[in-house]
């Protein structure tokens, strides 16, 4: 129910490079899992509101007060490549 082409399309959306063998393997495994998941179709959800947050939590907002705890060095220290305090990446426009 999910073939290799579909797997490759999904992998592209998710920015995952897959080789042929991985694509075939995922096609089979995901088909198995989705085959199982299709049992959801049996549940009668007519008129049911979808749920995202499962606990009764009151919304609390943040006050509009500026705060900064870290220096710029701390924030970019994990970056693989920088130029000054900017993050460097391969060309966005090629």
């Amino acid at each position, binding site marked *: 129910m999910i073939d290799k082409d579909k797997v490759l399309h999904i992998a*592209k959306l998710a920015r995952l490079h897959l080789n042929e063998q991985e694509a075939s393997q995922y096609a089979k495994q995901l088909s198995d899992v989705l085959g199982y998941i299709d049992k959801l179709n049996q549940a009668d959800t007519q008129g049911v509101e979808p749920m995202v947050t499962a606990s009764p939590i009151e*919304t609390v907002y943040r006050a509009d007060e500026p705060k900064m705890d*870290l220096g710029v060095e701390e924030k970019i220290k994990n970056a693989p490549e920088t130029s*000054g305090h900017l993050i460097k990446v391969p*060309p966005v426009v090629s």
Partner: protein
Amino acid sequence: MIIHDFECVIGIEVHAQLKTKTKLFCSCPTTFEAGDNENTCPVCMGMPGVLPVFNKEVLNFAIKTGLALNCELDSASVFARKNYFYPDLPKGYQISQYEKPICKEGYVDIVLADGEHKRIRIERAHLEEDAGKSTHHGNYSLVNYNRSSMPLLEIVSGPDMRSPAEAAAYVKSLRSILQFIEVCDGNLEEGSMRADCNISIRKQGDTGLGTKVELKNLNSFRFIEKALTFEFERQVDAAMSGETIIQETRLYDKDKNKTYSMRSKEDAHDYRYFPEPDVLTLTFEEALVDKIKKDLPELPLATAKRFVSDYGIPEYDAVVLTQSKALALYYESAIADTKNAKAVSNWIMTELLRELNDAKKSIEESPISAKQLAKMVELVDAGTISGKMAKDVFAEMWKTSKDPEQIIDEKGMKQVSDEDALLKIIEEVKAANPKQLEEFKSGKDKLFGFFVGQCMKASKGQANPSVLNKLLKANL
């Protein structure tokens, strides 16, 4: 506006940056001037495990805007994640309202140059966070996240505009509303307000919508109008020559005055929107809306109407004077010092706004204060200086910020209305030009102007023209 039986249909998405002190989902300051990646934190840099927390002031601003745009407010709006990969999008998704925006179904009334009124519908206004900024340097790009998670309100109009001029008028009206209620700077050039225009064409009389093209990168009212005009013509040309118009995003090149296609993305977008589980439903009490409603300032169109009825100026002038809150305040503060509201309006509309525009200055930065302008108008009305002299005084005020009286004093520019003094000049001019006097007397009426000019010159331009005229007529 019609070209070859085609009309254009324009809808506009305006991204207004809300001028809160902190970002939408973190406490980083929103100051414009900051070092590279300085106004950032783990949250707006998308680091592992950190979470967005909604800024209360953004809610206040959104409600305020919704009220000003006559929108229906949803007291349970929902944030979603819009998923796509881009280096300036630190989390790999943008938090944005999607299916349930905070504002929907409102309108803005605009006044066009010919005095026509038009109502532009607002389909929705939703909150979202801004992305960072990347700059491109050939074989690499650099990313700055200072702008990441800045609060934006995206205001989506209906496809209600029928000409580029209407489009510009709508964006102007919207901007003045946002400025009046103090939620957005409305600076197109600096990007605190961005307008993406969707334009399609159809045969006059058709009611369906054609394929729309989105125009981006329009950072002034002039460019909005020019780009839309170009695009309208381009689409009509395409339709006339049987080409199909494709749905795409085009950018405006201001140097060539053309629009060009953005490199089309390899595959169509699939943003995989789903409700953002980290941000709870945005709720508020009706009491908050009531409070904000009570404190809502007078809006631009209401102010313009008041200007018309109280000061007797034409409606179009009033609309121009209420373009921004600062300008309206300038006008009102000027006419507190003079009764001649119409003259003040004329000076602002013809001289001051042109100078400000040329100098790329805002009204707040005007070298001529409202008081000074009013004083100058008073001096003209009192006959102290002539209208012509006033132009010179105005130019000097613009250059030096000096009071008009001081300029008049320093340059000895006072208008001469004293009849004896003027008669003396007339006699001198007559004596110096016997030949012309002879010709005039023998019927060459055209020479009257010559004598006016000579007397003016002799008075160093200070003669009161009407008094001079009267005396000349009697004494030649």
